[in-house]
């Protein structure tokens, strides 16, 4: 009961989505229905966000109460959470909210992202060694494409950008295509197992 009804719900909702995919997309009500269902999903996810937030706050209040040298960080987390949430919920055009977005979130986010520039360098140093035939292919392809993407590549040898584009367009694109096909089959199989209730780990729990 606790498990069979959810499995039934999964089956029905999936089959409905599949059937609707094959209905004429020019029919107004078909489109409205599909959009409506997606809205439902985002509404449910919105409530689930509350669960996540409760967890985050609960964990940090707990750390705060333990009161050691690390408590300050939990306090900072809670304060920044509350400031942006309250200012944004009251008025999402408010000065505090956009100031925090512009001067805190945006730089934090893009800086975190930019750390990758350093990490690609250190990963390349470690991983790109011609230890095996496979690794050599990896290395050489990376090497040529990396050079081909910047003006310096063409300065070293005029043909490098051309070769680099060829690699991207033929061997790289085709292997990419194979990965996509393979992964799609995996995805079909997983969703089929979910629809039929063979795969039900996501429900957790006993019958």
């Amino acid at each position, binding site marked *: 009961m606790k498990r069979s009804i959810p499995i039934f719900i999964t089956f029905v909702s999936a089959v409905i*989505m599949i059937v609707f995919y094959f209905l004429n997309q020019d029919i107004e009500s078909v489109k409205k229905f599909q959009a409506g269902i997606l809205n439902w999903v985002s509404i449910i996810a*919105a409530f689930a966000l509350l669960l996540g937030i409760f967890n985050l706050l609960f964990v940090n209040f707990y750390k705060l109460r333990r009161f050691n040298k690390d408590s300050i960080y939990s306090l900072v987390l809670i304060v920044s*959470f509350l400031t942006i949430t309250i200012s944004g919920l009251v008025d999402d055009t408010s000065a505090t909210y956009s100031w925090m977005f512009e001067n805190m979130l945006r730089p934090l986010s893009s800086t975190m992202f930019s750390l990758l520039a350093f990490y690609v360098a250190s990963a390349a140093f470690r991983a790109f060694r011609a230890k095996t035939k496979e690794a050599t292919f990896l290395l050489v392809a990376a090497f040529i494409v990396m050079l081909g993407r910047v003006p310096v590549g063409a300065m070293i040898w005029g043909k490098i950008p051309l070769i680099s584009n060829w690699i991207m367009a033929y*061997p790289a694109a085709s292997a990419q295509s194979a990965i996509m096909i393979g992964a799609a089959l995996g995805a079909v199989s997983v969703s089929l197992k979910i629809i039929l209730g063979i795969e039900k780990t996501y429900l957790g729990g006993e019958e």
Partner: protein
Amino acid sequence: MTITNDPGIWVAAILTLAIFSFLIKDNPLYKLAEHIFVGASAGYYVVITYHEVLVPKLVTPLSTGAVKDNPYNLLLIIPLILGIIMLTKLSRKHSWMARYPLSFTVGVGAGLGITAVIKSDIISQIYGIAFQKPLWFLVDGKFDFTISFFNLIYVVSVLSSLLYFFFSAEHKGVIGKTARLGIWFLMISFGASFGFTVMARISLLIARVQFLLEKFLGIMS
């Protein structure tokens, strides 16, 4: 060099440096930035969800006026109830009820996903291989060797890479050899897309450095 006196840029610059300091080692400044980041971004998503989802998709359509205009809006009570059921997770005893909304979400995802991947990742790919990469390539109605040869490489690469993913056959003999060719193509593809990406990652760093140098420190080339 004229350092800015805009407090916003100061805060942004300090946070930027705090994140960069992680490259050297973990330190209290990074830890502080990290906690601000987690807290503020979680809050930001609460705000976005409220303004972009709850209000326009649930609250407004369920208001009296909107319901009068379009009685179908009343159907939104169903996701509202499902959403509230989701919150039973907070109770130990009733948390199993949350499986109802969850199974609905998963079902919709599985149903949408299965057709979408067949279309875009299987059929479109076959189309691309079979019709866009003809092995008998014509230029002005005449056979063109070079492109036909390239297309042959393309086709061989797809098929051999696909063979690598066979799970129910031992990689021995002909299958093994072909699959090994597939691995080589896969490796070339991985190397190439790594190299291709390096570019983007550095662009991001350049933008941050430009921010620090130009906007914060006021250094201009």
